[in-house]
């Protein structure tokens, strides 16, 4: 008998716009000691499924059908108090954002104690002891001291460890992990996932791992259930699913993921449209509106989960592998034309730029403190290329992007555009030059004034720069909207009426209004679902070809940049540590950090042997960075020289440059055999 058996679960929520059914007839099981991955995009119902198991629903929500058997007992028949006793006790839940999941006004010690004493009556000392025990279990350094800390005093990774500790305090049999690493940096993500695996083994727990990331699933789940539109569309063992996906959605999902082996010249496969809203859907396959292979029966009958091979079920009338008449595959565009590299002109030049943000001194008359956001970065952006800048949080990449468009002034150093430095230009000249340097912001909702219509938003740059007459501007707006793939009637609507992907298109249209030469895109797709990401990336590329744009793309997502960028710069704590073509940087990383970063990326390939997380430790403070090479506190190859002497970015002739005293030989591919000595997860 499985530890958890969910059969036909249905959850409904009353909202102002109607009755939503985020979980619609969901069936799966989890055995003791195994990890079930529940994967899907936003709106697929995966989070609601997890919450429905322990009846943790928003107001107006209720589990209206099906059964949930845990350890033999049907949870749906229990009263609220009995379910409450299970929570945190036999079934624990860890959610996505550790920043908001902990009560900010109470110490973590008090929250740990509470989690324990609710279920196990005990004294404060006993609870403290257990708290320290559990913090050690999750790898928190100096646990006893941390009991008195407040959540905001800890880093993101530490907070997530605390959340996990809270979940484990009563030794649950089942852990529901809802996007446990999505809000974390890649290197920390790897650590946390490894921790979860480790804990699972030691405590013989079962885990339901809810995520949207196929790479995470491949590396850490034993079995997978794919969800779409509130339903499970396919369920199988991980290897079986990756080797032979059946459902058309799963197939499309795999095709649209920019993985590292992709041919850069070809556009990504996309899934057109967006995920459905879960209100008032009739009997049909939920994926049909977006499916190339949809037939009449798909649109009129609910497909049920059918087991085709042992332990591999799917709910598709015309799965992959059957000969189905499909709508014409639009085919993926292949880029034409040679794109010149080394002899292209330098369009933007960043010379030894520093940026420091002042902070209030800690003590009233203490020394001045500053955040060293960027410390001595030099690079050139060539006409027509796509330069990617990658790094984790706090590395300064966003600051560089803002300096490139003039939102921030460098504290030291200079930036020049087409030969003229920003400082050298007068105010008026600078304003005019701004036409050539535009930006796409990360948060499209925040970057578009909610009170302006789309037409006004897209036309605004023209109005601000006093270009053209009203009529001319309207015409340009119409052209641009068409170029980014938005319908003409979008012009009269307001940003909140659009989805994330569509808003990003609006942002693109606005960025292009002045006909810029360079567009800086700050995390252009990070907030979007995988299937929508591909649409936007393809759009960016086609616009680049059409208008001859130069891109500077800032992202934390290496796989994205490997696909999108010609050259990549890797940043760490304000410094550029590696710079080269994307093939070079990927295939043969020279800086240990880059290598570690690449190793930490979850790959959607279950057959790869799992290597331990390579980048241990935490990011040092940007206020007081380590001397010399800033990566030395986490680097397995560091020596005294690294602390004394600052490594420079060499060679500076435009070829694959690295800032390290002991660069990797880089002749081997970045596979499982990195020539790093593995050091486990010890911190320095």
């Amino acid at each position: 008998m499985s530890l958890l058996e969910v059969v036909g679960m249905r959850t409904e929520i009353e909202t102002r716009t109607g009755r939503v059914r985020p979980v619609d007839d969901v069936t799966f099981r989890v055995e003791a000691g195994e990890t079930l991955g529940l994967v899907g995009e936003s709106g697929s119902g995966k989070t609601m499924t997890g919450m429905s198991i322990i009846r943790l629903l928003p107001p107006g929500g209720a589990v209206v059908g099906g059964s949930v058997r845990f350890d033999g007992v049907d949870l749906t028949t229990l009263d609220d108090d009995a379910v409450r006793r299970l929570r945190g006790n036999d079934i624990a839940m860890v959610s996505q954002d550790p920043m908001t999941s902990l009560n900010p006004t109470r110490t973590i010690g008090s929250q740990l104690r509470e989690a324990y004493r609710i279920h196990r009556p005990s004294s404060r000392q006993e609870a403290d002891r257990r708290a320290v025990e559990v913090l050690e279990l999750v790898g928190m350094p100096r646990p006893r001291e941390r009991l008195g800390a407040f959540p905001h005093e800890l880093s993101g990774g530490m907070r997530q460890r605390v959340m996990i500790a809270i979940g484990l305090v009563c030794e649950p049999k089942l852990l529901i992990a809802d996007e446990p690493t999505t809000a974390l940096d890649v290197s920390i993500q790897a650590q946390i996932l490894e921790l979860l695996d480790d804990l699972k083994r030691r405590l013989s727990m079962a885990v339901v791992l809810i995520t949207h990331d196929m790479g995470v699933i491949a590396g850490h789940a034993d079995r997978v259930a794919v969800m779409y539109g509130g339903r499970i569309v396919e369920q199988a063992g991980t290897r079986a699913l990756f080797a032979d996906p059946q459902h058309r959605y799963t197939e499309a999902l795999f095709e649209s993921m920019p993985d590292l082996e992709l041919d850069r010249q070809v556009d990504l496969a996309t899934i057109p449209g967006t995920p459905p809203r879960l209100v008032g859907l009739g009997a049909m396959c939920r994926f049909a509106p977006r499916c190339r292979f949809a037939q009449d029966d798909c649109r009129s009958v609910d497909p049920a989960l059918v087991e085709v091979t042992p332990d591999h079920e799917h709910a598709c009338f015309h799965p992959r592998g059957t000969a189905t008449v499909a709508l014409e595959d639009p085919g993926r565009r292949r880029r034409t034309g040679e794109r010149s590299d080394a002899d292209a002109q330098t369009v933007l030049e960043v010379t030894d730029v520093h940026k420091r943000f002042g902070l209030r001194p800690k003590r009233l008359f203490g020394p001045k403190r500053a955040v060293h956001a960027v410390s001595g970065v030099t690079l050139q952006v060539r006409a027509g290329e796509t330069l990617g800048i990658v790094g984790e949080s706090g590395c300064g990449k966003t600051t560089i992007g803002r300096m490139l468009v003039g939102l921030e002034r460098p504290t030291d150093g200079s930036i020049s555009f087409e030969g003229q430095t920003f400082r050298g230009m007068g105010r008026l000249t600078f304003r005019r030059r701004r036409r050539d340097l535009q930006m796409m912001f990360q948060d499209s909702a925040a970057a578009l004034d909610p009170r302006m219509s789309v037409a006004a938003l897209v036309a605004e740059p023209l109005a601000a720069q006093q270009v053209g007459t009203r009529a001319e501007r309207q015409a340009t707006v119409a052209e641009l909207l068409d170029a980014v793939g938005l319908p003409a009637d979008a012009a009269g609507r307001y940003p909140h009426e659009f989805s994330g992907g569509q808003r990003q298109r609006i942002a693109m249209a606005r960025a292009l209004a002045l006909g810029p030469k360079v567009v800086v895109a700050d995390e252009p797709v990070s907030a979007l679902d995988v299937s929508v990401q591909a649409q936007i990336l393809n759009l960016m590329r086609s616009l680049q070809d059409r208008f001859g744009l130069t891109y500077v793309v800032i992202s934390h997502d290496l796989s994205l940049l490997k696909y999108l960028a010609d050259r990549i710069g890797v940043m760490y704590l304000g410094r550029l540590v590696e710079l080269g073509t994307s093939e070079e940087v990927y295939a043969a990383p020279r800086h240990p950090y880059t290598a570690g970063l690449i190793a930490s990326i979850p790959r959607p390939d279950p057959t790869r042997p799992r290597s331990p997380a390579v980048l241990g430790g935490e990011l040092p403070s940007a206020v007081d960075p380590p001397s010399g090479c800033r990566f030395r506190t986490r680097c397995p190859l560091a020596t005294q020289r690294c602390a004394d002497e600052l490594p420079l970015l060499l060679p500076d002739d435009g070829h694959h440059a690295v800032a390290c005293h002991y660069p990797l030989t880089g002749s081997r591919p970045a596979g499982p055999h990195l020539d790093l000595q593995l050091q486990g997860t010890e911190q320095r």
Partner: protein
Amino acid sequence: MTFVLRRLGSAVPVVLGITLVAFLLIHAIPGDPATTILFGANASTEQIAALRTQLGLDRPLLTQYLDFLSQLIHGDLGTSYLTSNSVAHELLSRAPSTIVLAVAAIVVAVVVGVPLGLAAGARPGTVLDQVARGVSFLGVAIPYFFLALLLVLLLSVRLDWLPAIDDGTPKGLILPAVSLGWGYAAILTRLVRGRIIEEYRSEYVRSARARGCGEWRVLLAHALRNSSIPAITTIGLQFGNILTGAAITEVIFGRAGLGSFLATSISNKNIPVVQGAIVVIGIGYVLINLVVDLVVGAVDPRTRLAGAR
């Protein structure tokens, strides 16, 4: 510690500003104080002029202000024109009863308003919530002096449960405290209710539930803590008004206190008293808010990081 110092630091200019206003305002009143003082005495012009010099009223304003300040620092609020007693003495002898009333009103506001807000916020949409919202709506709308009259009419005259005029006993405190405190109770109810509803939507409440916290625990150990901050802050901000409200309520209920004293002082153009009152009330307000900020800093550690407002 830095936090405390910073708060104190920003309080100093405010206090100075208050003294400046107090000083200037009085000198804006038409009518010469010396004339006023000697009003009934048929004094001659020379006598009035002599008094003016004696009171220092013919010196340049800046000098007068600096004198005023230095006196203040020594705790000397001046001398009442009418009784020749020190202003400090006059104010302090009458202050206690007003302050007692103000505090009693605050107690009423907190004891009634906060639990009502908690209950309403924890169960929005229920009958209790509707009642609480309705009552608080009404409470905010009805002027406290009107409420005082109605309460007196009902409970004193018709039912004779409580005394209409203050007789110095705790019983006599009830009606004034309730009429003044009711409106603030209503404000607190709305505020607390709104915050509780917000907190209930937050992630950490959901996590607390995921750990097995029951509804009571969630309300009291988690939501309450974060909701109490705006409540405390409000009380601080309204303190000046509560105090003046107390002064007015006193008059209605015939309590001897600052209220009637200040009223007569103003009509008598008894400048030092009025100046002293402004300074004392103003500084009292600043101090109270300082205390409030410190309390908030203790409850919510994040504010300590943010530094001064």
